[in-house]
């Protein structure tokens, strides 16, 4: 079989992204637990197993999923295209040709700042592709490299 598929991209997301996802997962697990506890104590005493179930779901979610997600995420910006690989169960490799990119935005929020990260959104006519965490300098570099290649005639 022909396999001149280029090797998969190599750049991982910074460690800050893993830290951020862990906190997000931890917070959502706590919220889940609080809701379950609230239902078990306040609404129906018949469901003592609900908080246990929340723990059973929440702990692996907080420990395993961010790690797997981070382990899988890879990206590369080539001469012609943005190449990304992501996904825990369904592993998707997506190519966005640079000529199709309409604009690039770098998003900073208080939350991402805490982890020294920004999000990079790449917009095409079909939708938005996001790299969920990059160091600011890295993101600026990616943006500038894409924009430098966008000196193409006006077209969709």
């Amino acid at each position: 079989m022909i396999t001149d598929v280029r090797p998969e991209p190599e750049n991982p997301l910074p460690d800050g992204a893993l830290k951020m996802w862990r906190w997000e997962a931890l917070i959502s697990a706590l919220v889940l637990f609080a809701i379950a506890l609230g239902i078990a104590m306040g609404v129906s005493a018949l469901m003592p197993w609900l908080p246990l179930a929340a723990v059973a779901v929440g702990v692996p979610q907080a420990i395993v999923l961010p790690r797997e997600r981070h382990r899988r995420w890879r990206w590369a910006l080539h001469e012609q295209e943005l190449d990304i690989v992501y996904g825990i169960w369904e592993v998707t490799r997506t190519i966005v040709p640079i000529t199709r990119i309409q604009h690039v935005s770098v998003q900073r929020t208080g939350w991402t700042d805490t982890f020294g990260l920004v999000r990079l959104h790449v917009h095409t006519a079909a939708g938005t592709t996001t790299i969920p965490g990059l160091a600011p300098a890295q993101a600026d570099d990616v943006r500038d490299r894409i924009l430098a290649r966008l000196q193409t005639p006006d077209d969709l």
Partner: protein
Amino acid sequence: MTSEAPRHLHPAAIVVVAVRSSLQLFGGIVLVAIVRGSGPGTTAALALAGIAGGALMGYFGWRKTTYWIDGPALHFRSGVFTPDEKIVPSARVQGVDTATGPLQRAFGVVELRVQIPGASDADEIVLSAVTHEEAARLREALGQPAPAEPDELLRLGMRDLLLAAATGPQISVALSALAGVYALFNNVIDFEKDGEGLIARLDTAQEIAIGVAAVLFAAYVLAFLAAIVVFSGFEVRRDAGVLRIRRGLFQRRATTIPLARVDGIVIVEGLARGPLGLAALRIESAAHGSEKAAGRTLLPLVRRPEAEAVIARLVPSLAVEPGALERPPPRALRRFVLVPSLAGLVVGGAFALVLGAAAAWIAAPVLALLGALVGLRGYRAAGVRMAGSVVVVREARLARRTLLARRHRLQEHALRRTPLQARAALADLRVTVGSGGQGRARHLERGTAEAAFAALRRAA
């Protein structure tokens, strides 16, 4: 180029807007009057007030609406209380479409819609009445090619129109219309009181079934009529690098799409059309991505075996040599079938649990079987093919869709696999066109998917 003096629309715009807004006001007022049980005198007075209000809106709207060409841009100013000026550089104008309703026809004017890529329908510039000469002048000033002798011309005959309407997918539109009617009734008549009597009368399963069938039939008739209204006199022509589509019974719409902006065409074989060997052709274009289904139709009905030839005539860049698709291997079959069958089983089981009747358990195997059939259909449809500068991707969920896309205009393409697929050396291939539409071929032989992925990358 120089700036010209602001122009007003043709005075027919007063009438068009007046009728349009008084119909809205009128309908609302009459409904309120009926619901509140006002007498006929009050109702008539309110209705007259509605008409007068509409007429005033029409007049002042016309007074305050101006447009002019200033060098390379179209300026459009409108709004009675909060005037708003839109400026569109002619280089950004995607097309100048017309929509001509009965009123505009009576005055010998057209409604002009200036299409801008990325703009929603609400953001379009609409000149509700200009003369034909003015329309031609604006079109030229905005750099749009004037209609020429067509290179290709296809018309939808009466027989095909009826066939398209009878087999159309617009059934959902009719259902939502019915929901609207139902909500209206719910407000107008006292459903608490009358409705219970109605439901009490529908006590046997047979009567309920008859009621459901009647509703479905009414929905079908509505969908049929809607399709006739939308697609009457459908005509598509190609001249000088653009596709021109005309359609509509009461309101004639003329749409222009530059061929260069057509990313792909989808051959849609719906549930009713597929078995009859019929299909519809839909345009994938970034500029028209947000349009409703009717606005993206290249042809409402085509014989399936002729579809590729028709596409080649209308959009030459999508002409493909006949050839076979690369299909998923037989070991992929169970992957197509398993998930929908399990889903059918679970839904059927849940249904039976909720209903609590022993007889309802028949739903579980029946739905599982239906799921298996859907999966089998998916397996038989799935495939991908590289045909020169065109990529062909076929898939089936309910309708069978064959996407023909220009390779170098793909917005993205992706390869996807789960660990289970990886173990079986299978992978999914997905391509995305400008309108956000996707073509997905699932469970392909891994080598096939990777070769296609690599080839697409070279094209991009």
